């Protein structure tokens, strides 16, 4: 059929437009700038300010922390609170006792003698999350959040989330290969059938209701789960944290998202400079990354069980005669693992590690308290 043929050509053309990994070998800046990630929590919960430094693109480490800084929260009402250095670049307070509606700023004195100060930001209340849901899409599923502010006062929102999901092995393993031989597992402590996986948000999730009559956020995307993912294979839970933002903070996050997550398309705007609300007092020409916000945090955890979900593992059973040589040849490499025993004739059933031991699929045995 001619149409089909033409269509194939079109597909070819579409496939021709391609992207490939590329490293243009740019020269990184020698200088390192301070990066401030801070939400001052006016609620009864804790506040954690995370201070890091920018890295060269070629640097091997993933994060360079700013240790040994003094971090102080100053109120317009001359109040002050100190955040304690708990290591790893984290500066922490159990409860800063901030007042809603009052303006606060962050003062940072780094170990190299530089002093940084943020603009004043108003401490605000975040409305609670209404609901979290799941939509099936042609590509898998989308977890979304609904929220609203009856007072129509919030308008700008940001979310972070933590994901937890259970994975199960294809085969339930009662045996373990150890020291050249096979012994029964001590269950449940040595169980490798049930594991959990954890993930945190890596992309910025934002939404606003500025163009709507009411302050309503409907089905803002939190996570896209691609078809075939193991996330929904057994049971899935998500904890969403909601932050209210003001317009400037929202713009900062939106710009950060555009610059770093939404580049490369045909019609995406050019990467542009990122302006936060922190300045270096000692050297005003220094670039500082970050935007200090101040809002309470609303959390909500939901579970999704038994979602009809097409998760497949392709597992085959290998029958291994119960003699030391066969067992050693077959299981010593670690690629195959035993899971069952058939006495007539004496045979171990084994399969590839991913089909037997859920830990080899990135799971841990650490069961969450809320599970």
């Amino acid at each position, binding site marked *: 059929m001619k149409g089909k043929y033409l269509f194939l050509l079109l597909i070819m053309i579409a496939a021709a437009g391609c*992207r490939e*990994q590329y490293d243009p070998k740019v020269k*990184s800046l020698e200088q390192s700038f301070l990066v401030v990630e801070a939400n001052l929590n006016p609620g009864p919960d804790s506040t954690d300010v995370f201070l890091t430094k920018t890295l*060269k693109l070629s640097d091997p480490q993933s994060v360079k922390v700013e240790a040994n800084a003094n971090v102080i929260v100053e109120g317009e009402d001359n109040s002050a609170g100190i955040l304690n250095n708990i290591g790893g670049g984290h500066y922490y307070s159990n409860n800063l006792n901030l007042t809603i509606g009052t303006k606060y700023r962050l003062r940072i004195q780094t170990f190299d003698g530089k002093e940084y100060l943020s603009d004043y930001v108003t401490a605000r209340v975040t409305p609670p999350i209404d609901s979290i849901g799941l939509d099936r899409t042609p590509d898998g599923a989308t977890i979304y959040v609904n929220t609203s502010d009856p007072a129509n006062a919030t308008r700008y929102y940001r979310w972070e989330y933590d994901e937890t999901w259970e994975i199960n092995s294809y085969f339930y393993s009662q045996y373990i290969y150890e020291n050249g031989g096979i012994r029964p597992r001590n269950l449940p402590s040595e169980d490798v059938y049930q594991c959990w996986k954890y993930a945190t*948000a890596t992309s910025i999730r934002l939404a606003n209701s500025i163009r709507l*009559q009411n302050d309503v956020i409907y089905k803002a995307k939190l996570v896209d789960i691609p078809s075939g993912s193991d996330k929904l294979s057994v049971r899935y839970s998500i904890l969403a944290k909601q932050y209210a933002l003001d317009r400037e903070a929202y713009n900062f996050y939106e710009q950060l998202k555009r610059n770093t*997550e939404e580049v*490369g398309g045909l019609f995406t705007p050019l990467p542009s400079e990122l302006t936060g609300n922190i300045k270096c007092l000692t050297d005003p020409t220094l670039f500082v*990354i970050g935007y200090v916000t101040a809002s309470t945090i609303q959390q909500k955890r939901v579970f999704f069980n038994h979602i009809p979900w097409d998760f497949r593992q392709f597992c085959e059973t290998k029958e291994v005669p119960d003699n030391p040589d066969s067992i050693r040849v077959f299981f010593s490499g670690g690629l195959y693992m035993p899971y069952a025993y058939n006495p007539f004739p004496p045979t171990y059933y084994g399969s590839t590690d991913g089909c037997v031991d859920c830990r080899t699929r990135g799971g841990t045995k650490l069961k969450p308290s809320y599970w």
Partner: protein
Amino acid sequence: MKNIVLLLPIFLLFASATYGQVSDNEKITDEFNNIKLSEFFSRLEKKVSYKFYYDAVQLDSFTIQLSVKDKTLPEVLQEAFKGTDLRFSTDDGSKNIYITRKLLIATELPKGFFNTKNDGSAGQATDSVADYDIEVRKTNRLNTDKIVEIGKKEDQKSGSVIITGYVRNSKTGEPISNATVSVDSVYGATTDMDGRYTLNLGTGTHLFNVSVIGMKDSRLQLKVFTRGKLDVDMDEEVRTLKEVVISSARTVNVRTVQMGVQRLTIENIKRIPTVFGEADVLRAITSLPGVKTVGEASTGFNVRGGSADQNLILFNDATIFNPSHFFGLFSAFNPEVIKDIELYKSSVPAKYGGRLSSVLDISGREGNKKMITGSAGIGLVTSRFNIEGPLGNNKTSFILAGRTTYANWLLNLLPDEYKDSKASFHDINFLLDHRLDSSNHIYFTGYFSDDHFALESDTTYGYSNRNMNVRWKHNYNRKLSSNIILGYDQYQYDVTSKKNEVNAFKLGFDIKQLHFKTDFEYFLNTKHSFDFGVSTIRYKLNPGFYNPIGEQSLVTPDKVANEQAQESGAYITHRYNPNSKLSISSGIRYSMYNYLGPQEVRIYAPGLPLTPNNLQGTKEYGNGKMIKTYGGPEFRFSARYAFSNVISLKAAFNSLRQYIHLLSNTTIIAPTDTWKLSDANIRPQRGQQVSFGVYSNLRSNTIETSVEVYYRKIQDYLDYKPGATLLLNHTVETEVIRTRGKAYGVEVLLKKTVGKLNGWISYTWSRILLQAYDTTQGPLVNNGRYYPANYDKPNDVTLTANFKVNHRFSLSLNSTYSTGRPITLPVGRYYYAGSQRVLYSDRNAYRIPDYFRTDFAMNIDGNYKVHQKTHNSWTIGLYNLFGRKNPYSVYYVSENGLINGYKFSIFGSVIPFINFNISF
């Protein structure tokens, strides 16, 4: 028989003779008291032995009031026609008298008409003829060595006279533009858009030659006595299957005074291979020196360092705001209706204004005046159809042409989940022209294009150009002619999203302009000629609306207040040729721009950045009230000094103003870019350019070479603050950074116009640098240093070649190399919001890898049997022959917490294409 019979296949030329030849002695005495001409003639017929022939319809408005006594017939007629434009000629042999208006009829065959070559006489015929220009048009098909006389010998004056005329296709009656008229083998004139030429000749004998690609050269000997008119019909070059050697003298880009002008005919354009095989006007443009694009999917082009919105794109005087389909993959111009294109990069004629960088003037064809014809084409993605022909008589012709894409139904073949996808476009051209009489011609242009795009989502994009205009061309006399144009242009787009029922919206934008323009051309004498005219445009802009869709949508309707403005201009150009070597064109255009109410104008504290904090208040203006006026003179000067017929030196200076701007902070023109009028807070852009060039023709004018150097400055160029939102922004001025630019470069062109192998090589070295300089606006881009614009590609080489293997088979090759465009790359990275992220610093400090692409096409024509119902042709080719993955962009993106660098190519492999055309 009261109508004129044209007895001969007369070679009709103008003659300024007033009286016909008469030899009769019959005397007449009579009283004619306010009688009609018909009665007058019938009474005379009773008295004398002559018979009158005339067009009753034409002459019915004349009455005769006359009393004669003992007068001869010629005397009577002379007296009767005194003060009118009626003329008579007598044929004494047949006793006929022909009455005509203005012009005379030859009643005798030229002396020596029946001479045969072998009788030993000179063998050349001399026609003493009259130009007859009424109902039946017979013109010269000048392919013989015939001598044609213009005027009458008795009236000959010494000195120079003006000869004008039209050059037309003998088969279709379409005017032929850009034909070269040469006299005594020296360049004389080039025909204009309507096929008209004006020559200034000394009286005496001349060798007259008209040549244009695709037509047989027309050649004849002229004997010029007085000024006159000479129309030429040219025959198409019939392609015979037998090899013929055609040698013709090609003329000359050395001679025109304009510089930085590029002309391409549709035949040139069709030979350039393009992706999907669609002949593409805008892609052809980008193969010319000094023209660049940012990337492959961008139809916007950059001329000599100008941004894409600084090009005025005209299709038959209609401004096309979005010249592309499919977001830039195809140009929105149907090659079937285009005659040729002209791109002015440097010497922008004073009659054009309103854009800073260039004018792209796309001329439509006129329809076939002799018979209904048409053509159809099938390509991979589009199919097209056009039909043209005369309407009623041979004074009116039309072209109706349309293109559409199949992509929409192709997408229906996709699996169910893609069912809602669609991508389609179409465009329709309707061109009409009507010749009222020899000096009045009316043209109508209608243009409509429409694009829809939705893929795998509930968001649809649509945009549309709608244009129409009427042009009246009038020739007052041989020296003065005018064009009057009245037109309406519209561009609109909308985006509809129903993905999320609560946020479902429709947003849109539209711009409308009503324009009126008069252009006069006045040809005083050999040395002086003038162009002058006035123009005005009323802009009405709807900068954006945002409305809810569906009952569940909570979207609050939003609308940015409508804007309107008037842009007017008056210009005069003086072309002065003091001698054959020097030619000077000096033009001045005064443009004035009025930003008009109703509007609420925001007033900011003077001298402070335009930010919401510095807003002092607003002021209301009523409908039509002038809010802000900008204006000033624009200078257009160019001069040429020809050292000889084959080498010349040119210089030009230009200044321009632009009052309307495209708001865009993407690299290429995006579907949601909107236009903005200059207002109280956004100033018009201004630009100046100075350029020099050397032009030389080699090898008997078969090779054209040129080198041009230019330097440009741009003021009040619009750049935007980081992360600026431009769509539906009620205070766009707060996002604008005032920027200035400088551009300079060298362009070298080598063009072979004739022969089996023809084409051109162009090389450009150029820079465009921008600078944010207004320190009152907060932090400056790159700390106020100059930085390259997105389309700064210093080195650019293009080769376009066509090789004619035989008459039915030709090969085309197109190859282009350019420096990669500048991009902003990260200088570091950091961890934020759960992911590694990149740190950007200086804008456009890096470049993507260099671009290199070669395309190849074969054109196969069907057989050339003259008498068959249809003719067909095939084009088969390969785009990106070497399958090079030319990057469109290089970028770093944060994915799953990590930074990944990517190179993105739009066409990263060889793309084969095939096209089938059929004409009937």
